[in-house]
């Protein structure tokens, strides 16, 4: 089964589940004559279920058509570089809370540049440090955005930097 049809079927199942789940915990409207909290989502979901059903049919029809192009292979759709980058993005958004902005960004930047193709160690280090400093100065110092500090020694380091910047 192709990736697109699989995703569409998964989405269809989720929509059908959500159609019923939308009413869970929703009490009838307190004011008579008002729409309940589940009414609008259910209208949208009903439309989405019908549209997905027709889309799955259209996908199946286009796959079985004589002039159909070959299905995109999973390896082609998710090349190794993409998989590594996607995992790195997820990891970055999770570790930010623990390592703080400075440490996690230096590591993230260097690793992302490496995945894209930069191999020179000095450029990796210089690029990641400069980019982190630029973003830190713009957002933390000029715009007063409180960037994540992290925990433990990373937190102490972030606070030390903030005092230094003052």
């Amino acid at each position, binding site marked *: 089964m192709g*990736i*697109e049809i699989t*995703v569409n079927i998964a*989405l269809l199942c989720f*929509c059908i589940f*959500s159609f019923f*789940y*939308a009413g869970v*915990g*929703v*009490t009838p409207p307190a*004011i*008579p*004559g*008002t*729409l*309940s*909290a*589940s009414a*609008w*989502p259910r209208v*949208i*979901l009903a*439309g*989405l279920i019908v*549209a*997905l059903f*027709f*889309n799955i049919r259209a996908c199946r029809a286009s796959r079985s058509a004589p002039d159909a192009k070959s299905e*995109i292979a999973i390896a082609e*759709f*998710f090349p190794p*570089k*993409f998989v590594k*980058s*996607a995992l790195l*993005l*997820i990891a*970055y*958004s*999770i570790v*930010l809370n623990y390592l703080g902005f400075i440490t996690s960004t230096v590591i*993230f*930047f260097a690793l*992302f*540049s490496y*995945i*894209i*193709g*930069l191999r020179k160690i000095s450029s990796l280090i210089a*690029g990641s440090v400069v*980019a982190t400093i630029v*973003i830190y100065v*713009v*957002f933390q110092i000029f*715009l007063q*955005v*409180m*960037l*994540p500090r992290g925990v433990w020694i990373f937190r102490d380091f972030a606070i030390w930097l903030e005092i230094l910047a003052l």
Partner: protein
Amino acid sequence: MSIYELMMAGAAVVFTPKVLLFICIGNIMGVIFGALPGISASMAVALMIPFTLTLDPVGSIAFLSAVYCSAVTGGGIPAILFKIPGTPSSAVTTFDGYPLACRGKAGKALLLILVSSAFGGLVSALGMLLVSRQLSEIGLRFGPSELFAVAFLGLSVLTSMDEDKMLKTVISGLLGLFLATMAMDPVEGVPRLTFGSTYLLGGIPMIPAMVGMFAVSEVLKQVARPTEIKIDGTPSLKDSPMHVSFAEWWSLKWTMIRCSILGTLVGILPGAGATIASFLGYGMEIKLSKHPEEFGNGSLTGLCASETSNNAATGGAMVPLLSLGIPGGNAAAVMVAALMLQGVQVGPLLLKSQPSYLSSVFLSMAVTNVLMVVIAVVVAKMFVKLMKIPYYFLGPLIILFAAVGSYAAQNNITDILVTMLAGMAGYFMIEFRYSPAALTLGLVLGDICENNLRRAVMITRGDVLAVFARPITAGLMTVCVIFLLLPVIKKFLRSRRGV
């Protein structure tokens, strides 16, 4: 007071060295803040409030309106160069701006958005000056049912955004509307489709979702299948070989006029604003264009429509603020707060007791919209230089700006995760020809549609038919149905003819 006297009173405030200097500073800061992802126009205005303490109230509002106008324009710069909407109202600018940048026409696109923005801003400022009171009275006639119809009019563009992939675009739009319902119910106050998550109680945040869909997905696409982005150098009116020709400007004249009027009217409506104005303007031009297939592929008309409409909304937003003391949007609300800090009582009597507010805001906006072109070109040149950075640095830099920009809106780390997940979803959608733009449209308009529909039904005590029986609503809904069905009928007829 005659117009001449009014203008003289405004000129006496605005054309003083101090206020002019502040307007220049406001312009520079506004364009820079607008160009930084995550800093919305209202946030830019809020950040500039401390500066107003050294100005008198009339000077303050003139300064803040300069920041507001230039921030909305500044948002278009990264939208073209990096596909990152600097402000939510620039999301539509990415549709045609980025494809132009990829084709080596970044300078042309930048020049076009600056002049279009200036035109939209000037027309709306003029509208604000001349018909402020009348326009706000029309705007106030719009109740929840009319506002629902206006938002629905924005959604009616779904079937014509990509006529070849109509079903996929509709699915994307419906998905956006569905995602917008995952939050605490605004009327009953009960969690709805949040699956036990406390984060979802506040709804899926718009800025992270938009930034992820447009910026992160593009970096992931570049990582998976690198393509070269050509740069034509810095945008310049004189030297750039890619400047916009007179014939091209001439062909855009009606787009500019139509979108300026539409943007001003949308700006007046409470709760609507620059974002909705840009979507509506873009949708209107698709409907009116003889070549709708060009939209989304670097259409100059699409780019012009988006930027003219969103900047025209800035003047519109000032109308209810000045004439009735009602803030039409977030930025206007921040301006009210700034005036209240100075002890000014904002309300319907403001313009009667001090008419110079209206003319000074007009003159400030006029000066801003002219100055902005020059200042934004300088800022854009700085941003263009960023594009010469090798992609192994530029890619992660874009991700970083996207992540910190998303985080800055609410200081919530989970927003960064949402940005990354939206980026991956956006990548999938682009690969399989779904429409991230339609999803964003649904996400933006979903909340407005639902809230206004439910309020309207509440007013009519459950009589849904009565909601649509109001003349303006009925008219707008008829237009919506025509807009929604016309492409479907056209496609059906074409396929029959083909058979």
